[in-house]
């Protein structure tokens, strides 16, 4: 998104100046549109044997008709769209050198908005300390690569549990595609579960019923649009006072509008009744509704403190009692919560907001290991947006806004659609192996990193 800085460095004079001074230059990110291929070019696939995960990805790429190469030189024009490095076989730190050998030569050949996807095994399941160390080292490597990449390219790490090799597809697809435009420097843990591959990858949510709270505007409206684009029927929820914008969202996505305050005692029941009665059930719940009431802690009054915690956290706990009940969300369903980078890093003047958004992560942690939910195959994840261009951030003072845009590896703010794409991915049945994750959509922001 073009802020003042981005416009400057992309102007004819600014481009030369930025080049000479070595200033970061934000580029338009590759974003998904229906029918787009996973990547626009060849994928370099490598890693030490046995590259079980890499083989799996190779099959996926072959099905998609993507050219897979073992060296950059094999690619047409000497450019690759992505590098996928399978480091699942590393036993000790010494083995990591292979990653350097595979990835390093490719980095300068990456297309704009290129992708580096590192595949590894869960450090927690390592047999030995040296293996755990090597596995964990991948995180540092991947995050550093993310910071070295330019021109909209991203680097992410996928850690796969034992026995979850078959659950990799949805995540790799997401990370390679334009859907993950603003997801950078993240670690996604793929566990066991029973993924169901969609008949049509352009409509991975086909036949599903989703509820999105806070859907009238901004990120919530984008979530509704993306879920609907991916095939879901969307129930759009927002305050009665926001009903006109809400109706706009609902009519654009062909869903229904439900005007209610998520803090109402019966909000969960009314949402569930609406979804069941009108649409026959509920598969996906996105807790997106949220407010900010910023004040330094010293000046934070009771009402600002309470309202933020109540809307952003209390209402979720209360609605979940009904939505996650036995007659609530269907088995194999998905719950996605919207946290925030402030919930991870904290933020000046946002003690209340940070409390609520950190609390959201607590909810994910607890629910994702809940035996009853696990038995029912319900996944629980969160996204944590960084600086996203919305009406809200447009009101942030100029200097703070420009800093928010620039202090990340992609040197720009994200768009609501970037958050929405990430949520849509976490809502896929094909992604049933991913639960308990908090995925930041922040362009690898320096905050809380």
């Amino acid at each position, binding site marked *: 998104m073009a802020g003042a800085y981005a416009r400057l460095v992309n102007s004819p004079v600014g481009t030369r100046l930025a080049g000479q001074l070595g200033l970061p230059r934000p580029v338009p990110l590759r974003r998904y549109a229906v029918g787009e291929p996973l990547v626009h070019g060849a994928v370099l696939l490598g890693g030490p044997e046995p590259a079980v995960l890499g083989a799996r990805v190779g099959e996926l790429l072959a099905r998609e008709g993507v050219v897979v190469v073992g060296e950059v030189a094999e690619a047409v024009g000497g450019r690759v769209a992505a590098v996928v490095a399978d480091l699942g076989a590393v036993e000790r730190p010494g083995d990591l050198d292979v990653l350097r050998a595979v990835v390093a030569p490719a980095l300068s050949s990456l297309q704009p908005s290129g992708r580096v996807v590192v595949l590894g095994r869960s450090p927690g399941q390592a047999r030995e300390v040296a293996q755990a160390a090597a596995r964990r080292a991948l995180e540092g490597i991947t995050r550093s690569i993310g910071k070295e990449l330019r021109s909209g390219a991203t680097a992410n790490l996928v850690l796969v549990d034992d026995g979850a090799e078959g659950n990799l597809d949805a995540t790799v697809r997401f990370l390679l595609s334009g859907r993950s435009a603003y997801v950078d420097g993240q670690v996604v843990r793929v566990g066991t579960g029973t993924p169901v591959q969609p008949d049509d990858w352009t409509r991975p949510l086909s036949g599903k019923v989703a509820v999105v709270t806070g859907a009238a505007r901004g990120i919530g409206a984008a979530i509704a649009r993306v879920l609907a684009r991916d095939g879901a029927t969307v129930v*759009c929820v927002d305050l009665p006072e926001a009903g*006109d914008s809400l109706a*706009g969202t609902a*009519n654009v996505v*062909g869903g229904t509008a*439900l005007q*209610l305050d998520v803090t109402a005692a019966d909000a969960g029941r009314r949402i569930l009744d609406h979804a069941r009665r009108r649409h026959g059930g509920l598969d996906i719940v996105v807790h997106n509704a949220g407010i900010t009431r910023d004040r330094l802690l010293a000046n934070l009054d009771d009402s600002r403190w309470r309202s933020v915690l109540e809307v952003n956290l209390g209402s979720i706990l209360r609605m979940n009692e009904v939505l996650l009940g036995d007659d609530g969300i269907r088995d194999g369903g998905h719950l996605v919560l919207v946290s925030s980078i402030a919930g991870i890093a904290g933020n000046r003047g946002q003690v209340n907001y940070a409390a609520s958004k950190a609390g959201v992560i607590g909810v994910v942690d607890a629910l994702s290991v809940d035996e009853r939910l696990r038995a029912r195959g319900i996944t629980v994840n969160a996204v944590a947006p960084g600086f996203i261009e919305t009406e809200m951030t447009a009101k942030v003072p100029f200097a703070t806004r420009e800093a928010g845009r620039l202090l990340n590896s992609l040197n720009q703010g994200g768009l609501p659609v970037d958050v929405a794409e990430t949520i849509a991915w976490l809502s896929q049945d094909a992604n049933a192996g991913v639960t308990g994750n908090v995925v930041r959509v922040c362009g690898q922001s320096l905050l809380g990193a």
Partner: protein
Amino acid sequence: MAPSSQPRRAAVIGGNRIPFARANGTYAKAFNQDMLTAALDGLVARFGLAGESLGEVAAGAVLKHSRDFNLTRESVLGSSLAATTPAYDVQQACGTGLEATVLVANKVALRQVDSAVAGGADTASDAPIAVSEGLRETLLALNRARTAGQRAKALARIRPAHLVPDVPRNVEPRTGLSMGEHMAQTAARWAVSRLAQDELAAASHRNLAAAYERGFFDDLVTPFAGLSRDENLRPDSSVEKLARLKPVFGKGEGATMTAGNSTPLTDGASVVLLSSDEWAAERGLPVLAYVVDAQTAAVDYVTGQEGLLMAPAYALPRLLERHGMKLQDFELVEIHEAFASTVLCTLAAWESEDFCRTRLGLEAPIGELDRSRLNVNGSSLAAGHPFAATGGRIVASLAKMLHEKGTGARGLISICAAGGQGVMAILEAA
């Protein structure tokens, strides 16, 4: 007649309106088409009808610009409904919204359509202003002129007085009296007290405010132009405050009608969704109520034989007789509050043995209405009254109220209209 062509019940699925605004208030710059389109879009969103082709949409406006000759169809085209949804305009003064509801309910009942929307919009702010009759004649003559000489002759006929525009007024063309003046005559005839009128007005505000507070309108109203509640609503209204207002209609000692117990000029729009049971079931839509029957009546107010707004009093006995009902059988009664005195005169007439015998031809009076069943969630005195939008407001609200009462509960709607007319309908909870 084949079984499949037997009449069926017309279901009320729900409704939507935009908050009503005081004239020259928040919607001062809004057109009827903007408001009707917004009301439609809110309805479409509530019931997930985007892109759907409905049987028809019937709506109208009382104060209408000539450019709005196809108001409803244009609103449909601007809405999220499929462009293949037919539409037409209906107009029966303040009875427009309810008459439109009756019309489409009958079409559903006769299997001519499976789904339909009825409604109305009105703006007293964006009123059509016509040129004076003299100027209009001159302009038409100019239009017919073929030579420069004829054109010059036509233009020469323009007089300064012609330039005074013709602004629509709330008066009866045949009497030259405003509606309020007419009502003041009827109020005097029935000796309706100032206190009783102010009490009714205060109750309207109190009830409407309470309904908003408990979320009753969460699925009946969609905000518009920054307004999320009716602009005329005064939650803190009281008999004491209303008592301080000066009378605006009627003359001298007997004048009782004030700006507080009369409905203000208002802007707004409302729509109601009706369908067959099957159409609703296919979409998982809840049926709130059914349209049982309707009756329209008119009175001779021109000669002064009857009050301008008393026609509903005459419609009721015909409805009651058809259904073997008493007024007291209705669990809820909605009498449109054109003026507080309209409601009170109507109730007084039904209680009067003389009126019921001589005017309605009944052996016994219709009797008293339990006031706890009357306009329980407020009415036009508090919400305001954008003429054609009032019917839709009441039908949707009453259908929801009856649904809350439980299956079989019946409710009565009474709306008086300019020209000495009245429209009534019976709804029954599904």
